[in-house]
């Protein structure tokens, strides 16, 4: 069990998350892709923290958690507000900036 195992897994998950954001048109699933990418980064943080024997990486994870929570709260609020004005959840339909 080396750091490479975890780092490669992290890269794979990040790639899959990015793929989800690019491929899907449903903003909720795109958002899930972003969560996947954040988690991949967290995994790398914890892996480096373990193999460098320093706890800074783990503390970062907690800060990332907070940021993710705030981001999800506001991001989903925007999606909900968008849905109320446009009655759609397809991002391609929402191309104009002025709502």
């Amino acid at each position, binding site marked *: 069990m080396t750091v490479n195992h975890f780092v490669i897994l992290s890269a794979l998950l990040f790639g899959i998350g990015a793929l989800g954001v690019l491929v899907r048109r449903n903003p909720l699933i795109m958002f899930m892709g972003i969560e996947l990418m954040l988690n991949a980064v967290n995994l790398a943080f914890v892996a480096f923290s373990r193999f460098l024997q320093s706890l800074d990486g783990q503390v970062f994870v*907690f800060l990332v*958690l*907070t940021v993710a*929570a*705030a981001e*999800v*709260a506001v991001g*989903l*609020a925007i999606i*909900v507000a968008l849905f109320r004005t446009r009655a759609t959840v397809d991002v391609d339909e929402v191309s104009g900036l002025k709502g």
Partner: protein
Amino acid sequence: MPIDYLPILVMVVVVIAFAAIALTFSALTGPRRPNPSKLSPYESGMPPFGSARRRISIKYYLTAVLFILFDIEIIFFYPWAVLFRQLQLFGLIEMAVFVIVLLVGYVYIWKKGGFDWD
């Protein structure tokens, strides 16, 4: 893997096995006599109308959001509580600052009626 956590993994496996056996058993035993009205959604004997997958009130969403934002607090409170004997007054001030900032938000939500279920 830290050896302390191995038993938990074992227990999780046992519990999953138990649930799987119970659910399979449930499908195998007992009679099977389906008919359309038995399989339709139960609405106190009336014929069901409309779909059950309807849109729900925004209040549920708001509650879940507020839950997330306050749940983070718990994550920070636990290490603080465990260390409190060492941190003493310094710890108290640190956490007071943290909580006071959040209390501003709490009061704002309260005033805007975010906790009322109308």
